[in-house]
């Protein structure tokens, strides 16, 4: 009996010590700015939901290295000018252990000088070619635009175009006066040099443009074979509507339009999207290639419905979750948050994520591009549910995900 009491007391003491040790583990605090208001807030909130799902999943399993994960975040208002002060506060006042970026090139670029000054390992969420000027070795980026993002971003569109018979000869380039469209157009110009296309129109427009008809009409007057557009959601909607109203004629139209990936524009534009060649990061047509995405989307869509953000979540949320998975694996493998060790590990390792196997190149971009070039077709009416099933998106590139051939000319898809 005495032995039993001794054993029980010992076990109880061990349990109390273990609990105390666990209770002493400080939370792992991850800081970031996120666009919760402003023009790109829809994407920012969708990304935040995905990151919250990751945090809940991790904490349900006991956290990382026994530490519960906490987020410290602020609204960057989709404004680059707010970003430096947000990250200074996160590092100096909130004393977070790690930082990740908010959504998009516009808010990642202004955070880079601070990250470099503090030698932080920095995960970026959908920044296009941000590291091309900084060459920061601790920067990583989860958008699958490939090792040369300027080229990789536009590769699918130009590969598809140059595969047409007869080959296109002329191209019109147009985009908004903003960070992302400028970088996307720079990539398109590189592709133009490589392919020998003749540029017949190359202009940008201010982001608060109301009517895009004069722009599309000016493009039509140059009679291009291809029209490459780099735009943000409201301009994408305006340009697509203007193309429809004017009856734009070209072999291919689209390219780098942000907006058609989101449920709001998918349902609102409906059949006007038919024939457009654009990019997507996921479509139900390739669900079998990414078995983890659909179960994740079920969780995401439940929360998104309550919060009134993108009810599909195809574009950004799986990648926001994957970004955190990369960080999680690196922290576990290196046993802590040493920034140099984290960066070294991320550079040399493969990561199994919801969006597939990820490996980063020297500049922190995906080692192999995998953004999907797609063409929309057969869309009738404005019902959102039609997008949940395969059949309205043909994946044109990369080759390993290809589900069909492009249908040209653009205007014939609209009949």
């Amino acid at each position, binding site marked *: 009996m005495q032995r039993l009491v001794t054993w029980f007391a010992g076990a109880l003491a061990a349990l109390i010590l273990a609990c105390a040790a666990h209770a002493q583990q400080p939370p792992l605090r991850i800081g970031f700015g996120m666009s919760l208001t402003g023009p790109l807030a829809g994407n920012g909130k969708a990304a935040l939901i995905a990151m919250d799902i990751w945090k809940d999943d991790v904490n349900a399993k006991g956290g990382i290295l026994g530490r519960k994960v906490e987020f410290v975040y602020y609204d960057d208002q989709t404004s680059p000018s707010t970003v430096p002060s947000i990250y200074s506060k996160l590092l100096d006042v909130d004393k977070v252990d790690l930082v990740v970026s908010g959504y998009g090139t516009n808010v990642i670029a202004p955070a880079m000088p601070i990250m470099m000054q503090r030698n932080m390992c920095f995960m970026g969420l959908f920044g296009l070619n941000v590291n091309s000027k900084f060459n920061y070795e601790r920067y990583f980026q989860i958008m699958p635009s490939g090792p040369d993002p300027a080229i990789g971003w536009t590769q699918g569109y130009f590969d598809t175009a140059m595969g047409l018979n007869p080959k296109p000869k002329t191209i019109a380039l147009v985009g908004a006066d903003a960070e992302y469209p400028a970088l996307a157009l720079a990539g398109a110009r590189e592709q133009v040099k490589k392919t020998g296309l003749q540029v017949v129109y190359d202009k940008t427009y201010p982001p608060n443009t109301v*009517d895009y008809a*004069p722009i599309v009409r000016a493009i039509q007057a140059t009679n291009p074979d291809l029209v490459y557009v780099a735009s943000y959601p409201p301009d994408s909607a305006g340009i697509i509507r203007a193309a429809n109203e004017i009856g734009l004629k070209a072999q291919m139209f689209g390219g780098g339009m942000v907006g058609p990936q*989101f449920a*709001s524009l998918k349902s609102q534009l409906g059949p006007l999207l038919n024939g457009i060649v654009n990019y997507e990061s996921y479509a139900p047509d390739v669900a079998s290639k990414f078995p983890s995405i659909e179960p994740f989307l079920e969780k995401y869509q439940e929360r998104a419905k309550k919060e009134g953000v993108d009810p599909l979540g195809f574009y950004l949320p799986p990648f926001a979750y994957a970004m955190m998975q990369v960080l999680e694996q690196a922290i576990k493998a290196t046993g802590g948050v040493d920034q140099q060790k984290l960066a070294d590990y991320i550079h040399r390792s493969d990561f199994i994520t919801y969006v597939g196997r990820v490996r980063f190149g020297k500049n922190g971009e995906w080692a192999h591009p995998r953004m999907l070039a797609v063409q929309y077709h057969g869309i009738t009416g404005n019902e959102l549910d039609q997008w949940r099933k395969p059949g309205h998106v043909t994946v044109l590139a990369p080759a390993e995900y290809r589900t069909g051939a492009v249908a040209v000319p653009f205007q014939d898809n609209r009949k």
Partner: protein
Amino acid sequence: MELSTALVLNAVIAGLLLGGFYAAVSVGVSISFGMLDVVNIAHPAFIILGSYIAYIANERLGVDPILASVLLSPLFFALGAVIYRVYYLCFERRGQESLRGLAFFFGILFITEVALVLVFGVDYRMVRAAYSDTTWRLGFLDFPLRLVVPFVVSVAMVLAVEAFLARTFFGRAVLAVAQDALALRLMGVNTLRVKEFAFALSIATAGVAGAILIVIQPVQPAMGREYIGLVFAVCVLGGLGSVRGALAGAFVLGLAESFTSTFAGPSWAPAVSFGLLLATLALRPAGLFGR
């Protein structure tokens, strides 16, 4: 860019249609800022509020967004009356309307934006009207109804406001307040009521302008800030306090933007528009129709 008749005429049409939209968003500011000296910097926020009201009516009840905005304009009128009454009691009556009044309207701008974010979320919203995707073609001329219908409604609204101000007793009282409120008070007129009515009218026009905006393009809560510079530019170009001036200024800027976008490149459009504004002010400081 090669000059062709089709391009030029279509640029004229696009400029006029765009000018119609600019007139709708500017006429309210012309009344409040130009006639009443109330620096209603929150006017674009009321426009966005109008967009969302039209969105609800369209999405949930299937009503045409512009028709809904016209039917609901008394609500906006009442809202404007309440806001002016608060502004008057808290600032104007105490002679603190200049800086504190400006802060008051900035506050309303942010509160409206945050309220819209909380209620509707941050996604872009758009409406579907029967005419949204229809374009009339007359030879080589295009008339997209998505812009033609807002143009017609906008011009009708501006002309109705102009007729009201010029031809009714109450309208003339508003013009009189704009010219000399003290003289009017000495004649026994309740200028508070006149100004309250005029301000409420300006907010009612914002409701209709909001519906016009969401017919033309998708809307999100913070979008109104993009139009602050534009609406004030239209009013200053046309002449502060002149409704027909706002209409003329809107057409001038619309045409300038359309021609620049078509023939020189759209990124030059703001520079040309504001250059035109500066040139007009240099030659005619009171604006096109200012006194």
